[in-house]
């Protein structure tokens, strides 16, 4: 609608003592879009959220949200944003209803409106049955839904979600994605931080990959994947001794550098038009008498993007649901 982005950050810097959390962060999100800020723990994601939601002042740089300066117009801004964090920031000893009513009052709604809004949100988030129970008795997914409901009391045009699905089970995660999609469809601008590449891929219009306090790449998921190149053929040979023979057999089809992982008996081959070559490759491997355990053609993941951009894996363990093969691959020199 307006030309002005709903979220704009320019050259944000923040230091904690000697630690540099943000080193000149630039971000922008169009109104009604989803911007995912993707990066490992300690990349500066939460610091960015805290600055954009007025909780923290930047040391340098400036930022605007919904056209309001996060420092100068902080008070006015707080009425137009919602924040849901990685820890459900709700009161355990209050009921779901009491929490939402209290936050409504603290948003300076009248008692009547705050109570009505609490009931509406409880209904929409499927919490009506649990509304009169203290939050202590809620499951992790229910707490997260209540936390999100609390951030939506004012129907904010801009919503900040700091790792909204961290710690949720797959069902809880899908439910959260569904809600986010609905909000976006209704025109909410969403600023999302995540460690999950799949989440950014699913939800985001634009992704900013953040590392060490600055953006190291940005674009749509497809654009980022293109930076890494085309498809890759991944194969696992049945016998470790066959790896060399396999390399010889597939090298003619490769469009770039082969990656060999001896420990896992794996070979990754960048290919230009994988699907068309697949049959030929299989025939050649068969002719070379190399039995396979596994053969897969896959598009690059954001994990590959991160690895390519930083030269290291994003984090160990909790990053991607894809095969971790690329993290341990040894580059083949020949």
């Amino acid at each position: 609608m307006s030309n002005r982005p709903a979220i704009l950050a320019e050259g944000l810097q923040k230091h904690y003592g000697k630690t540099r959390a943000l080193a000149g962060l630039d971000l922008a999100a169009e109104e009604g879009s989803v911007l995912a800020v993707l990066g490992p723990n300690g990349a500066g994601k939460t610091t960015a959220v805290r600055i954009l939601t007025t909780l923290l002042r930047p040391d340098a740089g400036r930022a605007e949200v919904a056209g309001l300066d996060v420092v100068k117009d902080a008070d006015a801004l707080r009425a137009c944003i919602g924040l849901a964090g990685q820890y459900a920031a709700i009161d355990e000893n209050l009921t779901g209803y009491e929490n939402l009513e209290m936050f409504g009052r603290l948003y300076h709604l009248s008692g009547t409106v705050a109570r009505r809004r609490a009931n509406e949100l409880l209904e929409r988030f499927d919490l009506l049955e649990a509304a009169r129970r203290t939050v202590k008795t809620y499951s992790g997914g229910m707490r997260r839904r209540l936390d999100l409901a609390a951030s939506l009391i004012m129907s904010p045009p801009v919503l900040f979600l700091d790792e909204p699905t961290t710690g949720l089970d797959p069902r809880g995660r899908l439910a959260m994605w569904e809600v986010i999609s609905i909000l976006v469809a209704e025109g909410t601008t969403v600023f999302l931080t995540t460690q999950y590449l799949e989440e950014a891929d699913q939800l985001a219009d634009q992704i900013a990959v953040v590392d060490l306090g600055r953006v190291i790449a940005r674009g749509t998921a497809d654009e980022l994947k293109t930076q890494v190149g085309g498809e890759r053929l991944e194969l696992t040979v049945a016998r470790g001794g066959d790896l060399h023979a396999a390399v010889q057999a597939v090298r003619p089809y490769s469009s770039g550098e082969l990656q060999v992982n001896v420990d896992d008996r794996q070979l990754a081959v960048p290919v230009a038009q994988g699907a068309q070559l697949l049959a030929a490759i299989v025939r050649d491997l068969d002719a070379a008498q190399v039995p396979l355990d596994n053969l897969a053609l896959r598009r690059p993941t954001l994990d590959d993007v991160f690895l390519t951009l930083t030269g290291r894996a994003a984090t160990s363990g909790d990053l991607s649901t894809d095969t971790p093969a690329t993290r341990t691959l040894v580059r083949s020199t020949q």
Partner: protein
Amino acid sequence: MSTSDFRAEVLRPQARPRLYWTLADALVLAKRHLIQIPRIPEELVFATIQPVMFVLLFRYVFGGAIAVSGTSYVNYLMAGIFAQTVIFGATSTGIGLATDLQRGLVDRFRSLPMAKSAVLTGRTLSDLVRNTFVVLVMWTVGLLVGFRPQGPFISWVAAGGVLLLTSFAFSWISATIGLLVRSVEAAQSAGFIWLFPLTFASSAFVPTQSMPGWLRAFAEHQPVSLIVNAVRGLLLNQPDATTIWQALAWCVGILVVFIPLAVWAYGRRTAR
């Protein structure tokens, strides 16, 4: 999950003067703390059973061994036990703040267009209300075990006033501690430990005359003794204006120092 419109209407905060919100937001948070008390077993015990235990313990266990002149021990004791209870009760201010910080609730509050001060004033106000309730419970138990206040009713009310001011003042010390330490556990121990010498090395439970000289010098001049003596005078129809003024001066002095300190500690703690 319903797919109905999450953003059906645009809601606007009500426009009211700043001072109105300073009070209204503090009351919303005070209400939050008060409705929790019956739901948290420790809080409930802290607010009811523990003070009653103290009355019974000192009245029946230690009471017989402690000699006071001019009145019965239970009459002597009640002022001390009131003061000790409100002062110990004030530690929950700091523990509550540390808990809210740890759970991320303070961050949520700070992202709302509410009065910043309400996080602190809401806590100290609700603890004041809780302490009022506790004093009334103890007053009743005291009467049941032989406590007979003397003098006019208005002095008893004045004694209550001194106690509540004490409660409020110590809540702000407690708030400062809770905001300076790094964890809820630290808020618990750091909030309590210094109160033991202050309440026991005082005229709360025993006449200071029985203490060795060096301790007596401390006990007779420290604020808890002055507060206890002021309350005791008011309850036993022997009000001493100098002591009352000194007690009030201590409370006001504590507030003057610790309100700004707590506000500073809050700003420092939330700046990252």
